[in-house]
């Protein structure tokens, strides 16, 4: 599946890099000289930085145009610690990873509020501020002349360098770090963290509804990418033994971004391939003399036109196409109460008590009142329908309960606790799951991954355990995978596990969204028009599914248009019109309520109109 195309390229590259210093012995000439060696080392260092940026841009979907500053920060931390404090190489290295990581976390803070170009501007500004400080704080950073005479790095007294005499040990150290970086990236992406990052990028709302603390996950992405940048910086410092601000300007930020895009952002091998290609390309470009910069611009444009997904990205697409072609897709029947669904439905509230209690809930947007003094009492283990015509305030009510909107007045309590003002992800972790009116799937993630995201809150493995893929992580991942597959069986989508969610037919998307919500092992399930766009058959099955869940003790709140589906499935019905409750009671009573019929069909008092009832 994903990443294979890159993996092949990656292994090739790694092998080539490993033998590169010794090519001379093979072809019996003076090659590579320290000139070529250093170019390759610089490329490897940039690749490390690019990998970090890829985690940020490609997976977390946050564009940074100030990455060079974090790269430079690492470089200067390493230089200053070695020069001014006499830190040994490794210690300095550690700090030049940690300090940028901390700064990166701070940089993430704006994402709480701003996104897109606004975030871009902040990162640009940060980069410019950084360079300005480097240049002007002469006493500390050496100003424009930078820091010179940085001592040669050593590990345990062993001199590091890229000369034959030292067996190119520094070269191999950098290569080692590069491979480590690739490994960490892979481990991260194939874990709940990576999934959460992509989820937050593809549908922030859905992510929040699945118990993901979007701010925290973005902060994580930022500091990881900053850490990588810092590492690259430190390695650069100990290679060049000279640093000044000019290496870390806005232009470098652009170049780094280009490396990611060129290789294929959001792919594992992308940044490495991108760096290799771009770096060699710029070497060729110098042949254009005074037109080299122009050539660079042309190259940049060409890449974006020809390979909008980047080299690896485009390759993967091709392969995926061919693969997708042959796989067969059986749509299973649903609900399919397979073995081992116990944990999913087990977490129910004790029957009889009020799972959800709404008291005079009112919601206003500026002038208009979407929800007006609504009272609701949803009993544990029941299916409670919330119906009403378009714009009656049903979804608004749902958004209040799930924490997306904060009620202007009134009180909402769930599982016996007042939850007014709690953010969605906290409520999700307490056991409230929801679906969205116009399905909010993670379009570019596979069907299986979508469900796995739903299990985010269940993981206990720490970040370190995850990155190092220690036993606990592997156990949990295996369990999660098993449960996810069970849930796909449950909704009959096993055949589509590897398919990108956005390619599913509409009805299947609804199924997937339900499976994903169930992955949260909710006590209270909020369904927002789950039947919209489903066929008769599918609606039948949906009814069975909802009933089944309720019978197993789950509480379900159902927002629907389809009156009679509601009659079929719900224990109690609350009818909203213009944000107010116009009826509340058992389905039978609702069905015959004239106010309800009018709200639905209108009372066309036009000539020759028979109101169906």
């Amino acid at each position, binding site marked *: 599946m994903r990443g294979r195309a890159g993996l092949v390229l990656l292994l090739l590259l790694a092998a080539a890099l490993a033998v590169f210093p010794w090519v001379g012995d093979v072809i019996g000439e003076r090659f590579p000289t320290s000139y070529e060696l250093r170019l390759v080392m610089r490329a490897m260092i940039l690749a490390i930085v690019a990998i970090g940026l890829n985690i940020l*841009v490609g997976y977390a979907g946050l564009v940074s145009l100030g990455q060079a500053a974090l790269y430079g920060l690492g470089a200067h931390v390493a230089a200053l610690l070695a020069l001014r404090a006499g830190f040994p190489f490794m210690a300095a290295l550690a700090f030049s990873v940690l300090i940028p990581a901390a700064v990166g976390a701070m940089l993430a803070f704006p994402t709480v509020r701003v996104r897109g170009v606004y975030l871009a501007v*902040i990162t640009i500004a940060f980069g*410019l501020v950084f360079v300005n400080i480097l240049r002007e704080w002469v006493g500390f950073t050496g100003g424009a002349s930078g820091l010179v005479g940085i001592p040669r790095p050593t590990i345990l007294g062993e001199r590091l360098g890229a000369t034959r005499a030292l067996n190119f040990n520094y070269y191999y150290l950098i290569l080692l770090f590069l491979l480590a970086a690739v490994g960490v990236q892979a481990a991260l992406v194939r874990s709940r963290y990576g999934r959460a990052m992509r989820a937050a990028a593809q549908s922030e709302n859905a992510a929040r509804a699945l118990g993901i603390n979007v701010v925290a996950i973005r902060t994580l992405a930022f500091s990881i990418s900053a850490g990588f940048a810092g590492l690259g910086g430190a390695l650069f410092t100990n290679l060049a033994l000279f640093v000044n601000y000019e290496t870390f300007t806005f232009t470098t930020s652009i170049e780094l*971004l280009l490396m990611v*895009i060129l290789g294929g952002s959001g792919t594992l091998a992308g940044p490495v391939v991108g760096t290799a290609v771009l770096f060699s390309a710029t070497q060729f470009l110098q042949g254009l003399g005074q037109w080299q910069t*122009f050539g660079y*611009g042309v190259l940049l444009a060409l890449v974006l036109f020809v390979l909008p997904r980047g080299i690896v990205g485009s390759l993967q697409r091709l392969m995926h196409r061919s693969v997708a072609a042959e796989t067969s897709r059986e749509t299973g029947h649903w609900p399919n109460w397979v073995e081992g669904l116990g944990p999913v439905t087990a977490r129910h509230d004790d029957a009889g008590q009020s799972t959800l209690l709404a008291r005079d809930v009112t919601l206003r947007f500026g002038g208009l009142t979407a929800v007006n003094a609504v009272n609701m009492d949803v009993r544990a283990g029941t299916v409670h329908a919330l119906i009403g015509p378009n714009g009656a305030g049903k979804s608004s009510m749902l958004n209040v309960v799930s924490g*997306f909107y904060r009620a202007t007045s009134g009180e909402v309590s769930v599982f016996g606790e007042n939850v007014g003002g709690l953010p969605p992800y906290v409520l999700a972790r307490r056991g409230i799951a929801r679906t969205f009116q116009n399905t909010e799937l993670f379009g570019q993630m596979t069907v299986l991954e979508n469900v796995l995201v739903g299990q985010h809150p269940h993981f206990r493995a720490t970040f370190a355990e995850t990155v190092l893929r220690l036993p606990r992580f592997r156990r949990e991942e295996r369990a999660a995978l098993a449960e996810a597959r069970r849930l796909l069986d449950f909704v009959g989508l096993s055949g589509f596990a590897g398919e990108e969610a956005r390619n599913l037919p509409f009805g299947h998307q609804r199924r997937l969204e339900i499976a994903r919500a169930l992955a949260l092992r909710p006590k209270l399930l909020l369904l927002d028009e789950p039947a919209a766009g489903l066929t008769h058959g599918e609606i039948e099955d949906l009814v069975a599914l909802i009933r089944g869940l309720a019978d197993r003790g789950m509480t379900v709140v159902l927002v629907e248009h389809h009156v009679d589906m509601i009659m079929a499935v719900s224990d109690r019905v609350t009818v909203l019109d213009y944000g107010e409750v116009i009826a509340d009671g058992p389905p039978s009573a609702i069905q015959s309520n004239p106010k309800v019929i009018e709200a639905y069909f209108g009372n066309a008092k036009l000539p020759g109109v028979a109101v169906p009832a």
Partner: protein
Amino acid sequence: MEAIVQYLLTGLSAGSVYGLIALGFYVMWSAAKAVNFTYGDVFMLGGVGTVVLMELGLPLPVAAATAIAGAAVVGAIVERVFVRPFNREANSIGWMLTTIAVGIMIESSTTATYGPLGRPLPTPLVEHPIRIGGSGIYPQELLLPVAAIAATFALEFFYKRTVLGRAMRAVSFNRVAAGLVGIDADRITLLAFAIAGGLGAFAGFLVAPVVQASASMGVIVGLKGFMVAIIAGIANARGVVIVGILYGVAEKLIEGFLSTAARDAIGFTLMILLLLLFPQGLFGRAEVRKV
């Protein structure tokens, strides 16, 4: 006291340049929700173009007009070739990078042909400064605020009173609806970028006599203009120009009373803070998050 007057004067002229550029960004943004990220290079074309054409023997007004027209065409080309195809998907990284690519091409080709050094653009308005006590300003520089304010009102008139202007507002408000009343949204967007191109070149032409016309004259100003526009919220013409002028003055006061060396560090930090306080920009209105 004298000093403050000087800071206000030079700040006013410098700020007006930011304002004019921010105005261009605003025009592009409102039509396309995307911009030419390296708009500063179009600005540069105004100054450099005029100088080159004058060296070819054209009189100043003709040279300037031709340069501005040329820049307008460049603006349109950038939109059609480099922005439109990349403005489909939500994330802005596409058009940001493509327009950066164009910027690199424009600037480097100018450096290669026109040369790296600045050249004077002689106008009678930079020969003798107007003195106010111990401070002074060139008449040419006073043109800048005048131009900025004039451009703002002209633009507001255009948006409110003219058909094209209203069509442009319709497009920026809702492309689909605009199409449904028979407006060719793509055409309008193209036009917007052309107008912005002309506007930028106009600013470049006006400021060149004071700062010399060089291939790199637009880089920093362009970036600052963009930031100013964002800080203002790219919401309305007045807003961006006001913020532009204010930022210009602020810079001078920073230089005067804090530090000349750390001017940008302080200025940009200020911008970051402002963006954190007003995520939608000073004049931008927050939209309700739809769930």
